């Protein structure tokens, strides 16, 4: 547990800098977020972290479960609830907004029948609105799983979503 961010990296019995209590700490805590990504996405179509997986990581890293749950909940890429096999992240920051993100949002809403934060009934897609994806040169942008998608027409978006839903690509 960090006190204002000061946490000792090392050893099982060290007490952290601010004189906190000596809990067992892993030296590997800088790999925590990577471990959470791995566990979340360990197989295609798995896009969330289960209670059991979280408990396993808590045990490995020596982090109390409530704290770990709290850490995970801070970061938007992690989900503790089941999500679609494919996660669509549509950017609605300034550059994307002025280059038409809302049109894309409305189009996807109609096509998939869901709004932001929801998952399609067949479990294929979850739709999220996110902030800047760092690709403003090709606005409007979205990510689908790990892929950055830009510059598609409405028809091209439909084709892509259809093929993803069918399990291709």
């Amino acid at each position: 547990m960090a006190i204002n961010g000061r946490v000792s990296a090392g050893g099982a019995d060290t007490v952290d800098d601010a004189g906190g209590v000596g809990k067992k700490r892993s030296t590997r805590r800088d790999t925590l977020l990577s471990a959470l990504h791995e566990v979340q996405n360990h197989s295609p179509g798995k896009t969330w972290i289960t209670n059991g997986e979280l408990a396993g990581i808590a045990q490995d890293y020596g982090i109390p479960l409530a704290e770990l749950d709290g850490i995970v909940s801070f970061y938007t890429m992690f989900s503790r609830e089941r999500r679609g096999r494919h996660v669509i992240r549509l950017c609605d920051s300034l550059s994307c907004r002025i280059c038409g993100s809302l049109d894309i949002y409305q189009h996807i809403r109609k096509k998939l029948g869901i709004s932001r934060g929801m998952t399609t009934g067949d479990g294929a897609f979850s739709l999220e609105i996110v902030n800047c994806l760092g690709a403003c040169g090709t606005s409007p942008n979205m990510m689908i799983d790990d892929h950055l998608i830009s510059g598609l027409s409405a028809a091209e978006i439909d084709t892509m979503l259809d093929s993803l839903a069918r399990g291709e690509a």
Partner: protein
Amino acid sequence: MNDIQFVARFAALGKPLDIDAFALSSGFSGLRKALAMAPAEVVAEVKRSGLRGRGGAGFPTGLKWESIVGGDERYLVCNADEGEPGTFKDRFVLEHAPFLVLEGMAIAAYAIGARTGYIYVRGEYPQIVASLSSAIASAVKAGYLGEHILGSDFAFGVEVRKGGGSYVVGDETALLNSLMGNRGYPFLKPPFPTEKGLWGKPTIVNNVETLAYVPYIFAHGADAFASIGSPDSPGLKLFSVSGHVAHPGVYEFPMGSTVRDLEAAAGGAMGNLKAVQIGGTAGPVFDAAALDYSLDFASMRKAGGALGSGALVFMNTTVNMAQVLDVTMRFFAEESCGQCFPCRYGTRQLAFMANKIASGQGKVEYLDLMRDTARVMVGSSLCPFGQSIALPLESLLNGFGDEVVSFVKQQEFLKEAAV
């Protein structure tokens, strides 16, 4: 036009992961020269160059390196958590010239006495996490990282770490907290990371672009670097140009170039230029008079703004400013870490009021209340994130006040505002 290029030239090689191609183009020549100097001399050279941080704060890099103090272990961290809206130049560097960053990190680590370095890459750049690991492996194999770098006694290892989706983690102390596997809360300062950073040890955090320019200083000399750009902001800068321009993209220009220069490089504005936001979401939104502004730290401060990340978002007359206010305030509310009260509560109220205004349900009272809220946040937020909300807010309420007020008076606008 501009013919001095550095990063762009390496990017143009078109072989980002080919270490031999990089080296053949004089890549790692800066590292070679730096290793022939004493670490203190390396720091002095960077100071002489006048290089300032390229992440947004613009703190003199040499000074930062010089101020690292104490510690039996020191760390170098590369901040690749680029998240400022309108900014995509770090992605460009990491995708097209990753070895420049590694070279810069090696020089920095040598200068400050760090054995271990981390590159914290935002989670939304997964391919870069992979490609960087590959680049690091090549660099170790070729002797530019790892033990006995270039045959010297200097050893430095770099590991890549992946973020989880949070803008505020781009703040250097929030980044350190996240790197330590915590919620991304910025630290209380003092003490500064240079004294107590990663794991409580002295740490230097530098932006990707800053590190990418470090090799230039040693390959071509501090004087050469200082001769480009403007006296208070020397060197080249990667400007992220987006929005209503013909060719949005990353453009490498000397510091101090004008907004007009960048607009021209990007093929000119599309439609009638109405506004430009400079420096990212925490920068003011200017009207078209900004075309004549010089893009360096001092000039932008004089213009009532900040250079920030050097992002330029061009907006034409199809954009309504109430919507810009809505999108901007919402960004702050969604990205506030929640650690301190003024920002946690303030950003929510501001986002609420801005949204009401943009959807034609605003009250006249909101305008002054928003200003008061911003003032509270500027005065008492724990970190620069909350403190910076006043710039975009004031610029929109003052510079485009009539338009915003018209929304308060229930004007409808063209597209569905609700997301």
